[in-house]
């Protein structure tokens, strides 16, 4: 039997993490964690519920960032006026699992599970979000680009005594747009086979900055760094033509039933995410 904790302060939560370390399973929405417990994949000494912690359901704008509390659910994100301008994120959330899961599943949990085909995580990755990790020793801020252990899926760089308390997304500037494209085998409740997230800025009719997230194509989420560099300075049309014809080299497909399929559709998916990002970047100008 495991001990069960429901701390009421962050300090208490962080204290428990300090005591148990990796033997403590943090449960947020529980949509992944509870499944692991039921299937016997994990047998933690202790379980700690965190969704009730103060500020964990807050979404606020401050200091150039959109702050998302560590317990904010997908549904709360979808209903937030602060999140609404992030079109790509809204679209990713709309495709994530089912309405029932979206009511309890959390953005922080989606990041910490570290699945390679996580919709919300992929779009946050494209948005260049960072996470705040707190422990008894203090807090550190880690860019999502550095958050995943790139050697394997389902692993992050979080220490056993750390708690993800907040997600920070740089606010959208004028001329910035976001776009998302996912391909799956059916229209709902299906893990994506290809996920592309894009955040870009248009200035004087050309792309001035760009971030591309590639999901479900590697063991972890990765940036399409070559593409990001190549499209800067291009007009929207030119960029779309470029991505449509240029394989994102960071996508290193492992051999599976879907390899050939992915090869045949990834460029089109990148192009679609770009089209959407350009469209709402135009709207923001």
């Amino acid at each position, binding site marked *: 039997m495991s001990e069960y904790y429901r701390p009421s302060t962050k300090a208490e939560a962080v204290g428990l993490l300090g005591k148990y370390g990796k033997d403590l399973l943090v449960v947020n929405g529980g949509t992944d964690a509870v499944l692991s417990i039921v299937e016997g994949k994990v047998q933690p000494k202790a379980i700690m519920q965190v969704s009730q912690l103060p500020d964990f359901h807050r979404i606020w704008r401050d200091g150039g960032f959109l702050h998302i509390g560590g317990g904010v659910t997908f549904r709360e994100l979808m209903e937030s006026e602060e999140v609404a301008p992030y079109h790509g994120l809204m679209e990713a959330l709309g495709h994530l699992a089912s309405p029932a899961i979206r009511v309890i599943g959390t953005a922080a949990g989606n990041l910490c599970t570290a699945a390679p085909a996580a919709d919300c995580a992929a779009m946050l990755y494209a948005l260049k979000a960072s996470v705040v990790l707190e422990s008894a020793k203090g807090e550190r801020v880690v860019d999502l680009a550095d958050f995943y252990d790139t050697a394997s899926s389902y692993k992050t760089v979080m220490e056993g005594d750390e708690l993800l308390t907040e997600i920070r997304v740089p606010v959208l500037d004028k001329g910035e747009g976001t776009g998302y494209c996912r*391909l799956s085998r*059916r*229209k709902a409740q299906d893990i994506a086979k290809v996920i592309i997230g894009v955040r870009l800025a248009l200035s004087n009719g050309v792309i001035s900055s760009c971030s591309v997230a590639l999901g479900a194509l590697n063991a972890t989420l990765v940036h399409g760094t070559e593409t990001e560099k190549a499209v800067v300075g291009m007009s929207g049309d030119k960029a779309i033509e470029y991505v449509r014809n240029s394989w994102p080299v960071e996508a290193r497909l492992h051999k599976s039933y879907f390899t050939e*399929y992915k090869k045949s*559709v990834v460029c089109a998916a990148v192009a679609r995410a770009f089209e959407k990002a350009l469209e709402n970047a135009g709207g923001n100008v």
Partner: protein
Amino acid sequence: MVKEKYVGQRLARTDSLAKATGAAKYTGDIWMNRRDMLYAKALFPPYGHARILSIDTSEAEALDGVVTVMTADDLPGKNGYGGMVPDKPVIAKDEVLYEGDPVALVAAETKEAAERAVKLIKVEYEPLEGYDDPAFMLDPSSPMLHKDNPFHKNHNISDEQIIRKGDVEKAFKEADVIIDNWYKTPLVDHAYMEPDVAIAQYDPIQGGITIWSPQHAVQLAKRAMSDAFGMPQSRIHVCSQLVGGGFGGKEDSTFDVSVVAGVLSIRTKRPVYFELTRDEVFKGTGKRHPSLIHHQLAADKSGKILGIKVETIIDKGAYKSIDAIPSRTTQYAGGPYSIDNALTHSWSVFTDHPYGCAFRGLGSPQAHFAMECQMDELAHRLNMDPVELRLKNILRDGDTTIWGQPMMEERGLGLEECIRRVTSDPKFNEPLDNSDPRIRRGRGIACFMYGTGTGSATDGAHVMVQAQPDGSINIGVSASELGQGFLIAMKQIAADTMGVSIDKVYLDYADSAASLESGATVASRTTVLTGNAIVNGLEKLKERFAAVAAPMLKTGKENVVFFDNKVFAKGLENEGVPLSAVIAKAFSSQVPLGAIGSWYPPMAAPKGDGLGDKMHTYAFGCQGVQVAVDIETGEITVEDALLACDIGKAINPDTVEGQFEGGMAQAIGWALMEEHFMSNGRMKNHTFHDFLIPTAKDIPNLRTIIVEHPNVLGPFGAKGVGEPPIVPGAPAIRNAVYDAIGVAINEIPMTPVRVMEAIKKSAEKS
């Protein structure tokens, strides 16, 4: 004279409210509320094919709470059971032939103890090669799966069927055009919501046993399991609870769980509960048979079909189960068309896969998939309208099928009306929006026919009817409520036949002790066969009661009319007596209040070469669909689906439309996403995470048209409706995709992976 007061009305199903509110109880609910039962688990092998070298159950037996652990040496009877033949072992002895063969069974006081105990059983296996390819296993030089195959001289064939009609070689020689293609359909789970479950309770009074489980066939269950229980069939009492989805699968898989609970109950003399996990349902229970079809079609340049040659290889899986697929695929290989020359040949072949069993359509969807794709290929080749091509070839009054059965309008022959109503539908003729070059839209149709009943010599139905002195009626019928709405349909038929209000009719159903053999609730047969048996039984009662009533009404018994709970002389509606008074009088006059109603269709008449009448009547239909194909991602969206189906007479149009919609939705799953992947006899995808079925978002607004060409032999003109609606969906979608992108995809499901592959291949060719 029978007046239709309820038949044809849209009456709510008697089970829907209780199911919607949770008041309806299923087998699993019984376990929740009883505390005297043992909990059973089976140990399944981690191989698709392996020799069992040793089993050590000592640790499991020593565990607290474990009451018994059984291996094949501990069985009360023969080590075999099955719906058609007892070829499936209760517990595997020397060898496992697929992942669903139990190696040992446990019964314990608690679920937790049972789950722990199976993990403590130590089995030493010698893994053997798992055979996945039925085409390979069909070759006589392939290795032998069953040691002594009693079914065929070629050691891996379970069944082989041939239809030979006319002179096929001559037809092909004279043909202007020959269409020659291969088609492939997948291994598919039924995906019913309720996992397979059974309760068995040994009867110490007479040495019998009672089984509660969701069944398609409570009477067949007695025959299927008596050898395994070492009991005469008469001692086995089977009750089917409400069935949480079956689609044909629980005709057979329920025996898998019932037999396990049964042998454990016989051994322990305690009631035993056994339920499969979803993982075990996927790996172990029956599936829709995969098929590989080589279809050759010869036609003249006007589009008249001259002949067909069709070879169908069917993956039987490890055991025989329901093995009518070779029969059905040879029968329906030419679709609903008049074809003078045919050679159709099918084999079902053993592999190390889950056994193929009944699944809505029973071979007809596979056969029609090939034939209806061929029809569009032919239309394409001849540059003909696919609708016109079909109208030129469909079966009409007086035509004979490829198995030589004459078609008769009086048995219901509404195919032409179905085709015309679908293809003239205004929405189906709206211009297609093809403005986005990446999204290509197209339309397709497919036609089909589907027999009512099994077409076998044993196909009949018998019911018990009994009038109560208060004017109400009991009907004992062995059919099961699977969610199809059989209860309300039978009440409508019985109420109108007897002239009573519908609340007076009560069905004692799905209990082998309260009913007679009325056949399995399969083969789209219940409305017609059981309905006719009820009519027959009630007519017998009416004849008796008319004789009782005649002197009361001062008229001749031939003038007695039953209507509205009253009995009156013809024309004197306002002067009658209550039916209850007549029944009470009969009760006190040595007139029996109970009778047996029976009905058999005209006997199927095999004449050799696979020729001869099969089912007495056939449903016909045509489906039209509109699809959008995303040519950059391979995604297919079914945007519109319209099904017209001639089912003779809709006893209850609401439940008929429910069947239409359910079949269409299930066909979308089969056409676009459902498939199990097998490797070395092991299932690669055995969760709903990997085995996808359609969600609400994958299904368009399903439109239906009921067509009624009455069957003179059916109750109120009815034909079967349960299975037909699944048949045309897949080829209609495939033909629509062909129309949209000009690429023929001959393997389903048409997943994005296959669509992109087909587009790529087609581009390489051109």
